[in-house]
């Protein structure tokens, strides 16, 4: 673009800003402390559940899958321990998603980004990959030094190779565990190892190996900062009472080195507790400075709290210069008042109530759901048929659902106009007028049911008819209502 000289421009920096910024590589330093321990524990728990759950067995009887958690796509069934769901019951997942979303809101209003800092798969796997990196290449300083030096010694090459091999192994196991949720795990493991598993299993393992390797090994904090919508949503959901990982600047400022603090204190000047050691920055997995206040990039993992606590302990000052806190309390302390922590407030009570209500409804409906069901569809063309003796017949398509783990013998009764007789096409029932049929366990049967009203009953144009489906053995009953129509 041709620019005309502008007197104001002559004094200002005239170059354009960069089109993009390079990813600043983060070298988080190892740290020990309360939050690190919590993170290790949660990581072990989350990964343990993910990797080993497919191998947990659950006896459902002969012929049914014995895997505790199984998504059986070919047969459209979902198994979760004692629960078996059919595709039409997928609304239970809606309830689960509502509970999960509100639980996220609740966490957020109590303790900020607890999900991001401790539980999110991106955080957990990245944390694991960082641990591997530290184990192979050393801590922050060593890694920085090694990355800077361009010389490729044999040791360096083998280190890099080892790191990526372990990463790939973890990534591969992550993808491998995923497919085990969709098929009998021990069988599939055997098939995978002997290269007899279906191609789709290998493809999924490949995809998830690649995503785990790239997201946890390379993308890391970029996923949280640029790809994940939750930091934006979280910022809109938080309030002034929510506890977030906070640098207590009321206590920390003005930052002064230990030596200088002694001199200044002797002169009676005010100095803060922060010694500007940058340990909080060194351990941060997203490479930010928590002392700049709440930031989009901060996943609130609490590692800076541990780092700062360690320094404070060493120099004999109270812990928690960085801690879970909020601006209200910083202000109160500055005014000389005691901090107030308000966990129970309208927002958290409302979220808890929603979780309890939705969870309660789900548990109630799940516990009381019927394992026998019937759907009836009236024939539309023709709606009614006159038979040679003048009686009227209606035909219905009846779908019987047996969700239980055993075969059922069921009887169908049609209650409507007087003296109805019923017949199921293809079934010669031993009990005339009360068709009995067997529905195999865990399946549906579609029948064509013919219901006839004698000529002399002369039913009205349209009369409600109620279909009772009774389990002969257990007495369980399911009903459906339709109409009996006369021409």
């Amino acid at each position: 673009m041709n620019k005309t000289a502008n007197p104001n421009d002559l004094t200002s920096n005239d170059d354009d800003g960069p089109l993009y910024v390079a990813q600043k590589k983060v070298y988080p330093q190892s740290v020990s402390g309360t939050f690190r321990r919590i993170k290790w524990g949660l990581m072990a728990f989350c990964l343990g559940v993910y990797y080993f759950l497919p191998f947990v067995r659950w006896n459902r009887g002969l012929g049914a899958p014995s895997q505790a958690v199984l998504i059986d796509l070919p047969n459209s069934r979902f198994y979760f321990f004692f629960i078996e769901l059919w595709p039409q019951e997928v609304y239970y997942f809606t309830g689960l998603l509502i509970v999960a979303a509100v639980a996220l809101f609740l966490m957020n209003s109590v303790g900020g980004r607890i999900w991001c800092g401790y539980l999110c798969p991106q955080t957990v796997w990245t944390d694991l990959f960082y641990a591997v990196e530290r184990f192979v290449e050393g801590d922050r300083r060593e890694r920085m030094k090694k990355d800077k030096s361009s010389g490729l010694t044999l040791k360096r090459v083998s280190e890099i190779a080892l790191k990526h091999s372990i990463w790939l192994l973890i990534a591969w196991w992550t993808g491998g565990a995923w497919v085990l949720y969709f098929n009998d795990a021990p069988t599939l493991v055997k098939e995978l190892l002997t290269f007899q598993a279906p191609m789709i299993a290998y493809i999924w393992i490949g995809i998830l190996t690649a995503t785990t390797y790239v997201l946890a090994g390379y993308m890391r904090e970029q996923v949280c900062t640029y790809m994940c919508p939750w930091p934006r949503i979280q910022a809109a959901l938080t309030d002034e009472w929510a506890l977030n990982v906070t640098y207590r600047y009321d206590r920390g400022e003005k930052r002064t080195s230990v030596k200088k603090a002694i001199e200044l204190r002797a002169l009676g000047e005010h100095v803060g507790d922060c010694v500007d050691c940058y340990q909080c920055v060194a351990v941060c997995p997203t490479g930010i400075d928590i002392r700049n206040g709440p930031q989009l990039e901060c996943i609130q993992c609490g590692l800076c709290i541990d780092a700062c606590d360690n320094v404070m302990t060493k120099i004999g000052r109270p812990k928690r210069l960085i801690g879970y806190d909020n601006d209200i309390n910083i202000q109160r302390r500055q005014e000389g008042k005691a901090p107030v922590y308000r966990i129970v407030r309208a927002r958290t009570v409302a979220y808890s109530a929603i979780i309890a209500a939705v969870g309660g409804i789900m548990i109630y409906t799940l516990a009381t759901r019927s394992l026998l069901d019937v759907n009836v569809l009236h024939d539309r063309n023709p709606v009614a048929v006159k038979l040679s003796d003048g009686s009227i017949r209606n035909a219905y398509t009846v779908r019987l659902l047996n969700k239980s783990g055993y075969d059922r013998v069921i009887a169908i009764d049609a209650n409507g106009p007087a003296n109805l007789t019923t017949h199921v096409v293809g079934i010669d029932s031993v009990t005339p007028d009360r068709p009995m049929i067997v529905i195999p366990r865990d399946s549906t049967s579609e029948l064509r049911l013919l219901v006839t009203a004698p000529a002399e009953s002369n039913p009205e144009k349209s009369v409600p008819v109620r279909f009772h489906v009774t389990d002969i053995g257990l007495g369980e009953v399911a009903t459906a209502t339709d109409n009996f129509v006369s021409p």
Partner: protein
Amino acid sequence: MTDHHGDIDSVTGKSTTGHEWDGIKELNTPLPRWWVISFYLTIVWAIGYWIVYPAWPLISSNTTGLFGYSSRADVAVELANLEKIRGDKMAALGAASLADIEKDPALLALARAKGKTVFGDNCAPCHGSGGAGAKGFPNLNDDDWLWGGTLDQIMQTIRFGARSGHAKAHEGQMLAFGKDGVLKGDEIVTVANYVRSLSGLSTRNGFDAAKGEKIFAENCVACHGDGGKGNPEMGAPNLTDKIWLYGSDEASLIDTISQGRAGVMPAWEGRLDPATIKAMAVYVHSLGGGK
């Protein structure tokens, strides 16, 4: 990029884009490099699509791409696969006997599904999409069957038809007693009323039942049988029941007796394969349970 005039935001220390709204300035926050690279890669990827897949319209056709991919060819392959899968199932249907098909829920479901489709394509024009029939075209949902309502009889009718010209077709027709001068006008009225009386319908004043019975015995019994119970061998309908193919009112009956009736059902043997005909027979039988 816009010229940011070196304007540095005093709070953040970041440069701005130079855009300002009511004193609020937009910070210049560049995209991460991997994002920009990914964006350019998608553009390159799109060019790959032009080369590999059909993309650009030409005057009379279009570029076909490196692999000659065509979604139409995909459909053809899928349809061929479908036919292959169906082939096995239809073979099972072809091998089973009609009675066995109705006893086996899986085969019954298959036959009903197949039969329904084929019925819609071939039979619905006359019998209606649900087999409800119309005047002159029998309702297949009831228990009244001109040529017999067992599975085998239904299949026989479907295969060879009625008065279809096929050598094995059902033959026999209702004569035109009036048109051919066999019966006189008043005789036709009398016998029409007699036929109505057989199924308990009202008769006109002054109707001579004895005369009607005599005319019926001389002209109709040969096909419709003693008492008018009908004969499926000849396709002669039962005149004592409540179902009337051409109507039960006096005018319709007079018309039927005067003009005769000889509805045609085409033969499907040779036009549909045996397994399909079997499926259709089972479907039709399942509509009302046959007789």
